[in-house]
């Protein structure tokens, strides 16, 4: 960053990306409030469950709108949403205040997991959803590190090897990709959740998602050209490369396959984008050093780059046991 104008330009780019991400986060949180977006809630009886939340690896705090008559452990049934037939043992119930009850569960709970709490008397039930921030953090970090798109899912390899010869290009590309991934991810989520799934048109998802990507990239290109000519000059080439790229398309496809909620989709898009940008940066640094190394003739060019990526992949395996919500 020798010349100051370049530094300012870079700052503006970073600010722009941060602004778009913040906007996407706000939209996702608003969408999460729409009742249809999460499936029906079942709590309508007189003492309602106001909230239920995993607060520690073995504690669940439940708040009721009125005090309960029975507060023994046998009155509560706690299970994973994926396995409703296998209740997790409730070992103790503590009444903190009239409407506030703390359950101790005998199994390690995960903050980003979905659970279901049932009360036998009066008959109540409620899904225990992870708190927004825990979910966001877990999904972002796990998609950036544990399931890094390049090193463990092998997506975007062509562009990964094509663009990492120069560090500047790699940084620009990483930023552009993150931006496009977040915007296309959220737009396709809206289309999938509110149009394709209600109309049972899921089989059209490939066509629709690739249309969304092409449309958004074209739009971003036109808008950038008019409003930020300097930015467009720098990122324009990458934008055109993005249109049919597997790494962009994988985000909506993964979200559709997992039937993810708004916040989860956003977190996946952000995390994968950041993970990809990080992979590009690391690889470009390593390849700049590689220019000076003496490589066996047969390995020159791509083969040695693949071997390098293999070493990075080995290093990233170290993240696989990571659990952020201990």
């Amino acid at each position, binding site marked *: 960053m020798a010349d100051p104008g370049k530094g300012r330009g870079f700052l503006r780019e970073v600010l722009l990306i941060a602004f778009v991400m913040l906007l996407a986060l706000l939209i996702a949180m608003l969408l999460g409030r729409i009742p249809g977006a999460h499936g029906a809630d079942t709590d309508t009886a007189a003492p309602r469950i106001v909230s239920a939340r995993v607060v520690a690896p073995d504690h669940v705090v439940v708040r009721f709108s009125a005090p309960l008559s029975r507060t023994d452990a046998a009155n509560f049934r706690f299970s994973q949403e994926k396995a409703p037939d296998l209740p997790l043992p409730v070992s103790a119930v503590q009444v903190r205040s009239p409407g506030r009850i703390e359950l101790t569960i005998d199994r390690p709970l995960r903050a980003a997991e979905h659970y279901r709490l049932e009360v036998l008397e009066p008959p109540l039930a409620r899904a225990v959803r992870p708190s927004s921030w825990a979910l966001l953090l877990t999904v972002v970090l796990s998609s950036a590190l544990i399931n890094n798109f390049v090193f463990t899912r092998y997506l975007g390899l*062509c562009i990964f090897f094509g663009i990492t010869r120069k560090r500047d290009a790699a940084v620009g590309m990483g930023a552009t990709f993150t931006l496009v991934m977040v915007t296309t991810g959220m737009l396709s989520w809206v289309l999938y959740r509110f149009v394709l799934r209600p109309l049972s048109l899921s089989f059209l998802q490939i066509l629709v998602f690739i249309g969304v990507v092409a449309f958004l990239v074209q739009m971003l290109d036109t808008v950038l050209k008019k409003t930020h000519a300097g930015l467009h000059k720098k990122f324009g080439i990458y934008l055109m490369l993005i249109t049919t790229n597997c790494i962009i398309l994988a985000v909506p496809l993964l979200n559709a396959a997992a039937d993810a909620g708004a916040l989860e989709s956003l977190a996946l898009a952000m995390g994968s984008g950041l993970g990809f940008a990080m992979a590009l940066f690391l690889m470009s640094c390593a390849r700049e050093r590689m220019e000076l190394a003496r490589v066996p003739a047969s390995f020159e060019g791509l083969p040695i780059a693949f071997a390098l990526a293999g070493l990075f992949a080995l290093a990233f395996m170290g993240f696989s046991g990571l659990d952020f919500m201990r």
Partner: protein
Amino acid sequence: MSAALHPGPAPRARDLILNGIFGENPVFRLALSLCPAVAVTTTVLNGVLLGVAVLLVQVLSSLTVTLTRRWIHPRVRIPIYTIIIAVWVSVIDMLLAAFTPALYAQVGLYVKLIVAFAIIISRLEVFASRQPLVPSFFDGLGMGLGFLLALVVIGAMRELLGAGSLAGIPLAPGKPLLFFALPAGGFFSIALLMALFNRIERQVTGTRAKAKGGGHG
């Protein structure tokens, strides 16, 4: 990318197929469509499934483009090609999900991502949009076979070393090298095979040819 082939008289079928397998092998020579080449090749069968899917999509979209190109305006050709590929990928995706559910569960995402393969759209742009029906068919067949062959070779190497078996049949006794079944092993296998391809090429032609990086998808 392959300026030598066209324009001019339509090349022969045999040359087209051999060109796809050796001269312009999508994976080893052109370094295109690498993502699935690493991702699904932990076993031979996975490689075969994805290779067949790509073969079918390539041939079918080549034929569709050749038959419909007189109605496609040159300015909108790329979006139209993309839609044609997406339609065929959806068809193949649903067929595989219906008839080979067990294998599909492992490679499903990558079958859907065929739509973003640079190799398919580049063959449509470079070949199928200019040549008659029959050569287009053989060009698609050659490229598809080249891709299938590459996936089978990588898959066989990784399964043999990583699991000690071939297509599910145990062959090698003793403890397998788990490393080759891991993500990192995939990268190293391709590095070794590409270097081997380069070496053979160099000995055959006596020149220093490198697999070129570039393209995307």
